[in-house]
Structure formats: C-alpha cells, structure tokens
C-alpha cells in the first residue's frame, strides 16, 4: 500500500500563494475527500501531489521519495489522475482511449501485452463501459464520458488515484455511482483522493475529509469531525441541516449564514 506524505507544502501559481503550510499523510483503505470553497486550493493540492506543480517550499513524498524527483514513468505507474473536465482532442474510440491508461507500463515501441489487455478489460468492466468500446469517446453523454474517463484512470492500475471533481456535470444517479466506484476502490486498498464540491456526497461517501480554506488545511478527520457547524459557517459561510434517511446520514446545505 502506498503512502503520500505532505510536509510544510507551499505552492504558488505565478505570484499568488495558493497553498501554505500543508502537512498531512494519506494512505489507502478509505476514501479521502478534499473539500473547500472555490479558490481554496483543492485542485492545486491535487496537482502538487501528482508532481505537476513544483512546490515553493516543503515536499510531497511518495513512499518516502519526493514526487518531483521520480522518473516520470515510475510516478505514472504509482499515481493515476482523473482531471477535472477531462478534454479529449481527437475522436478516439472508447477502447483506444482506455488503452492510453496503459502507457506508463509500455516499453518504447512495444505493443499491448496480455496483462495490458486484461487491465483495460477490467477497468471497462468495473465502470460498466464494455458496451461502449467501439463508440467515439467524443460523442458520449456526460455520464458515459465520466465513466469512460474513470476507466482510463483505473486502467493504469496504480496504487493511488487522484480524482479532481469527478461529479461535475453528472446527474444524481451517476454521481452516486461514481462515488460508490471510488469508495469501493479505496476500501480495496487503493489510495483514492477525490476533490469534491458536494458536501452531501462528501459526508456520505468519504471516510476522511480534508477541508481547505484560502490555501490552508483547516480540518482533517472523519466527516463528522470536519463538517461541524462552526467550520461550515467559517469556511463556507453556510448553515446546514443534518439528519438521516433510511439509515443514511445526510448533510444538506440550508442557507447562507
């Protein structure tokens, strides 16, 4: 099982300090959600964890090794990324698109091996996209595309997966399906970090939440411990209703405080 350790991380985009003094450690076994208002630095944290951004100060360690110093293919085999609003620039078939996930495993100029094909099939089966395999990935509905893009990320078979707002533009049923898929992976031992806006989904599906505000880590712990009335008021400026329906605990934003 892989561990990501973040030590005193500061990240700047241009002149603007986006993350300041982030300290935490993440490991598999439960779904980890990153929440916070717009501009809190959630996506920046995700990109820094992937080694896409160079820290201004501090480090991101992947099993003790700094992500920025790992060989690109090694890093790619260990952490998979499902970016926000994933774009696709050429009309590949779904199968070809999912196969891109195997790229970190391929030797130069080699073809897909039996193991690669098996990983592609498994990823498509897990996301229910086997029927779509010959379709143009650019012509799918929003829900289909989200599942195909998740299949692409799962096909990497990495020990860690970072998903940036995978629920955007999904209807409620697909949102729950996506969260169930991610939670299932996490409980099977993969380190899954998911950036979320929907507090109801975060409270319901995540085992641990990291609450960011203005580039700082405000709270880190179980949903109950993080999503307190005080924290919601301070960070989001909202009040929330808490309850349960059919045994499922619910948190619903009510109004602006």
């Amino acid at each position, binding site marked *: 099982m892989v561990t990501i350790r973040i030590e005193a991380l500061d990240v700047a985009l241009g002149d603007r300090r986006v993350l300041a003094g982030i300290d935490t450690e993440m490991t598999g076994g439960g779904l980890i959600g990153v929440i916070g208002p717009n501009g809190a630095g959630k996506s920046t944290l995700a*990109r820094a964890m*992937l*080694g*896409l951004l160079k820290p201004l100060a501090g480090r991101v360690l992947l099993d003790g090794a700094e992500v920025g110093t790992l060989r*690109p*293919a*090694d*890093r*790619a*085999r260990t*952490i*998979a*990324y499902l*970016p926000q609003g*994933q*774009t*696709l*620039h*050429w*009309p*590949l*078939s*779904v*199968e*070809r*698109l999912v*196969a*891109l*996930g195997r*790229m*970190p495993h*391929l030797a*130069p100029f080699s073809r*897909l091996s039996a193991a690669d*094909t098996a990983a*592609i099939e498994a990823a498509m089966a897990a996301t229910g996209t086997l029927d779509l*395999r*010959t379709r143009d990935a650019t012509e799918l509905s929003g829900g289909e595309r989200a599942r195909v893009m998740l299949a*692409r990320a799962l096909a*990497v078979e990495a020990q860690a997966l970072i998903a940036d707002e995978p629920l955007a533009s999904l209807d409620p049923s697909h949102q729950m399906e996506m969260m169930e898929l991610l939670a299932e992976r996490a409980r099977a031992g993969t380190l899954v970090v998911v950036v979320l806006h929907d507090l109801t989904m975060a409270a319901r599906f995540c085992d641990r939440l990291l609450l960011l505000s203005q580039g700082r880590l405000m709270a880190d712990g179980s949903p109950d411990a993080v999503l307190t009335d005080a924290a919601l008021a301070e960070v989001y400026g909202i009040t929330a209703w808490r309850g349960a329906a059919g045994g499922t605990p619910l948190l619903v934003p009510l109004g602006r405080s």
Partner: protein
Amino acid sequence: MPPARGTPPALLIGLPSLAAILAALASLFIGPAGIPVADSLAALSGHGDPIVRAILFELRLPRVALGLLVGAMLGAGGASLQGYLRNPLAEPSVLGASNAAALGAVVALYFGLAQAHPMALPLLAILAALAALAPLLGLAGRSESPLGLILAGIAVATLAGAGISLALNLSPNPFAAMEIMSWLLGSLEDRTPQHVWLAAPCIAVGLALLLWDGRALDALTLGEDSARTLGIDLRRVRVRMLIGLAVGVGGAVAVSGAIGFVGLIVPHLVRPFTDRRPSSVLIPSTIAGAALLTAADVAVRLIPTNAPLKLGVVTAFLGVPVFVFHLLRERRLW
C-alpha cells in the same frame, strides 16, 4: 485486441507506398525532354545515349529523390505538429516555419554565405525555422484555443515572406522577382545531386526525431497534465519536436523553397482511415506526403502553361480548401 476501427496497418502503409512508387516512376519517365520509356530504362541500366543518361541521373533522379524526401518530411511534420498542438490546422507552413527557413536560405544564398561554406545554406534555414517555431511551441502550452496559435503563425509567415522580398530586393540579383516567387512558392526544377546530399541527412534526422514521439502525441490527446501523469516527459518531447521540425523542414526548404499545405492536406487525407490516434497517422502521412508531393511535381510538368508552373501553386490549390473547411469548423469555438 481487435482494432476498434480503421484500416488494417498493412493497407494503411501499403496504399500510400504504392502511390509513392507510381508517382516516382511517373516523375522519372515524364519530362520536357520527352524521352521514350524504353530509352530511359536503357539509360538507367547504364547503357544507351549518354545525353539521356545525363538527363536521368543529373536532373530527373535528383528531382524524384527530392520530391519523395521533401514530401515525406512535410507529411510527417504536419502530422506530428497537429498531434502535438492538438490542432488540425497546424503544419510547418501555416505556422511560418517554412517561410522562415526559406528566409534563412535566401540570406545564405544571396549574401554569399552559401558560397563560403556549403553547409551555410541548410544551417541558416534550420536556425531560422528554429527561431520561428520555438516561441510558437512555447506559447501552445499556455493557450487552449487553437486559433491564437494559427494567427501567430500567420504573422510569422508574413514577416518571413516580407523578409525574403526585402533580402532579394537588396541583393544584386537582377531576377529578384522571379527568385522571390521560387522561394515563397517552392519548386523542384533543375535540382542537382548536390541538393539531394544537402537535404537528405537533415530530413533523415528530422524524420527520426518526429517519428520517435508517436506515443507521447497519443497521450497529449488528453491534454498536457494528463500526458504528464501518464509518464510523458513533455519538456523532452517539446525539444525533440522542435529540433526535428527545424532540422527537417529547414533542410527540405533549403533545397525546395517553402512548399505550403502538404503537411496540412496529407494528415487529413490519412486520418479518416486510421483509429484517429496521432501516432497511427504519423507513418502513413510520411509516405503519403512523399507520394503527394512527387505527384504534384509530375502535375507541374503535365499542365501546359507558358512559364513553368511552381510546385507551391499546385499544393496551395489543393490545400487552401482543406484549410478553409477546418477554419470554418473551428469557428464554433469563437
């Protein structure tokens, strides 16, 4: 894994190869000297009329070889630039690299540098192409809109074109206007074996560097961040792309002038028959580029005109409709 879509690779390589061979044969046997095919064959096998032999070996063979080489380079350049920039309008001449390389060649030729050292001509063409491409490829990472890049390329192309006109106006050459046309439109007329030896190594290096990165281009289909998280070292890809294009296009333009639109048309002709991955377009485009340019060079000789037709005129007539078609499709994004 069965191919989800697309023509079998054997056909995808085989058909353009066949077209290239036919075009090369036509180019070898058709010309203003009107030599019968039987005489040409005799000359090629080392017999026959020495004048016919001279025409074939000193004029037609270099022209065939250059048509194939330059066409291959332009086809590969267009396919890899379109893949790298994720932009169906990208190609060396649209981005100004061809005109810039032609400017470098003109400066080398008409200010005496080429006479001083034979490598000055390709070297200046390569450096000029590098100077034109480097800022564009740097810019590309930061903007998601394909049109900004095309506009920047058109600015570079226009500036380099003006530079060519200026350089030739200032040179002591009395045939400046004709020469300007040759460099801006491109031509393979009256080339010698020396031209082949000048261009071939540059184009070989260019092709090798461009064909190396097919897989990185596939990863870029998902954007730069995703490509990096798939283990692609984008900085190295960019450097290989830049050097491959500058050296290959620079070498090609140094002997042929700026032949436009081949790199635009060819990938669009090839792509519908592939599975749309940028890597699967690369090699068929290279071969089809060789076939198309050689065939266009035959057409230049077959179409009856008073003055010899410039090769770039033919490719522009073929290419501009493709360009306009895709520009209109891009308009949706404005």
